[in-house]
Structures are given as structure tokens and as C-alpha cells.
């Protein structure tokens, strides 16, 4: 893993016992789901709904964990804590960071997929 890579390919492989078919299928699922998860987080922030922010950020954090995507995990975890503690004023800025990190992650994941 290079210093600025969005995910750790070795760790991702290890978590799935280096089953390349499973890895590719799961990456596709994540590519599909991530934009929806981000939209749900954005909606929670717009609605100023702390509980919804906590659960939606938690969900993205969990999925990103399986991608071994440390920075997206950290950004989602920060939003989850804001949701739990009701600190919604800080959420828009944290969400911008999460969006940027996610965009980089998705781009890198797409590149790793075998061409179909």
C-alpha cells in the first residue's frame, strides 16, 4: 500500500482469503452501495437528524472496513460520533471530507476490477 492509497489491497485480499471472485463481487457491491450510503448521510445532515446520521455513517464505516479503506472508515466514524453526540454543526465539513475520500476510493476500486 502506498502512503496515499485509499485502500489496502493486501488487507482486503486477506479478509476474503484471497478469493479473487469474491473480492471482485464484493467490490462491485460496494461501488453500487457507496453512493446510496453517502446520499443517506447527506439526507440525515440536511434533516438535522442525529440518530439517522449515526446509523447511516455507521453503515458506510462498516462496509468501508471490509474494503480496508482506512481514511473513509475514519471520516465515516467521525460523522457517526457527531451523530451520537448530536454535534450536527460540524457535520457538513466532515461530510465534505468523507465525500472526497469516498470519490478517491471508488476510483481506485474501479481500476482494480478485472475488465468484463
Amino acid at each position, binding site marked *: 500500500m502506498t502512503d496515499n492509497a485509499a485502500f489496502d489491497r493486501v488487507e482486503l485480499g*486477506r*479478509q*476474503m*482469503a484471497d*478469493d479473487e471472485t*469474491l473480492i471482485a*463481487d*464484493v467490490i462491485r*457491491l*460496494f461501488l453500487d*452501495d457507496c453512493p446510496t450510503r453517502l446520499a443517506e448521510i447527506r439526507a440525515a445532515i440536511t434533516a438535522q437528524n442525529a440518530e439517522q446520521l449515526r*446509523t447511516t455513517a*455507521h*453503515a458506510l*464505516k*462498516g*462496509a468501508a*472496513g*471490509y*474494503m*480496508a479503506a482506512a481514511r473513509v472508515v475514519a471520516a465515516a*466514524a467521525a460523522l457517526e460520533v457527531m451523530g451520537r453526540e448530536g454535534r450536527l454543526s460540524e457535520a457538513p465539513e466532515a461530510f465534505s471530507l468523507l465525500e472526497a475520500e469516498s470519490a478517491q476510493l471508488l476510483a481506485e476500486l474501479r481500476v482494480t476490477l478485472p475488465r468484463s
Partner: protein
Amino acid sequence: MRTLVADDDRVAAEILSRTLKRWEFEVTLVTDGAEAWQYLQNASGPTLAVLDWMMPHLDGPEVCRRVRKELPLANMYLILLTSLDHRRDVVAGLDAGADDYVIKPFDPEELRARMQVGVRVLTLQERLAERVSELQAALSNVKQLHGLLPICSYCKRIRGDDQYWTQVESYIAERSEAQFSHGICPACYVDLEKQISSYHKDHS
């Protein structure tokens, strides 16, 4: 081994179910806690369940709580999935009735080892349950020979629950594993000998 995976996240659910299938677990996948509870209520035989902590409708600990309260005799091994920053909640999860927990994202070797513990516990409990039912069957045979038996003071027949008078040996043989070999005891032999010789005397 029959195994339930309950996780509302598609990524986690896919990884879990395919990993467990590769290890030859018989996997059923559900996506919320209410479905998990419904599945477990209808499950018969030993069942392993891997339950995500946070799920819609019922969370993982609540599913564990219901299983332990409402299905106290069910042979189920429950593993909760929790994230690293919720590790402090582990005690609450175990108190709710979980047998074990795994931190997400899970380490495959750790998960496999913990699943094997579950299989071992469920298999032992299953064997124990079989042994208990064998013993109960044996005990019910023995119990039939307990209690107050009405017996005729003269012919020694016993009156059964069906009100018929039965000879002692057939009464016991029907209600136990005992079998009878007929013979004659020394005291009866002497009496019988006397009776035979007096019969001969009277008729000679």
C-alpha cells in the same frame, strides 16, 4: 451445520455468507433482526447464528435476549458482530445471551476458529440431549415397576392398570428388561417330594 447470517449491509452479508459456505456451513441469509428472530423461532436442531449488532427492527443483542428468554431449551450458538469502537459493548452483548462476538471487519481465521467452537458446543449439547432422552426412556420403564401393586395373597397374581390379574413373572417381564427361567427352589422341592410320595402311598 445449519447457520444463520443476519446483516443488513450487503457487502458484509456477501462476504460472510460466501466465506461460511466455503467452509461448508449451510447458510441462510437474512437482512434484519426481525427476520433473524423469525428464522430462529422456527429452527429445529442445532443452529449457529452470526448476528450483526446494529440492524433494522431488532438489533443483534435483542435477538439474543429473545432466544434465551423464549427458547431456553433451543440448541443455538449465537455470535455477535460488533465494530472495534463498540468493543466496550461486548459485556452487554454477552449479558444479552450471545455466546461469543467477532470484531468487524472480521479476520477469517479468527472467525473460522470461533465458528468451530460453536460447532463443538452444539455437537456436545446435541449428544447430551440424546443421552438424556435415552435415560428418560429407560427411567420410564423402571418407573412402571414403582408404586403400590395389588397382589393376591394366595395365588400371588398382580392386578394391572387394566384390572386383569396377571402372574408375577409376566407382569414384571412386560414392564422391564427382565426374563425368567423356570426352575424349583430347594424348599419347594422338599414339599413337592412329600406331596408326590404321599400321592403314591394313597394310590398304592
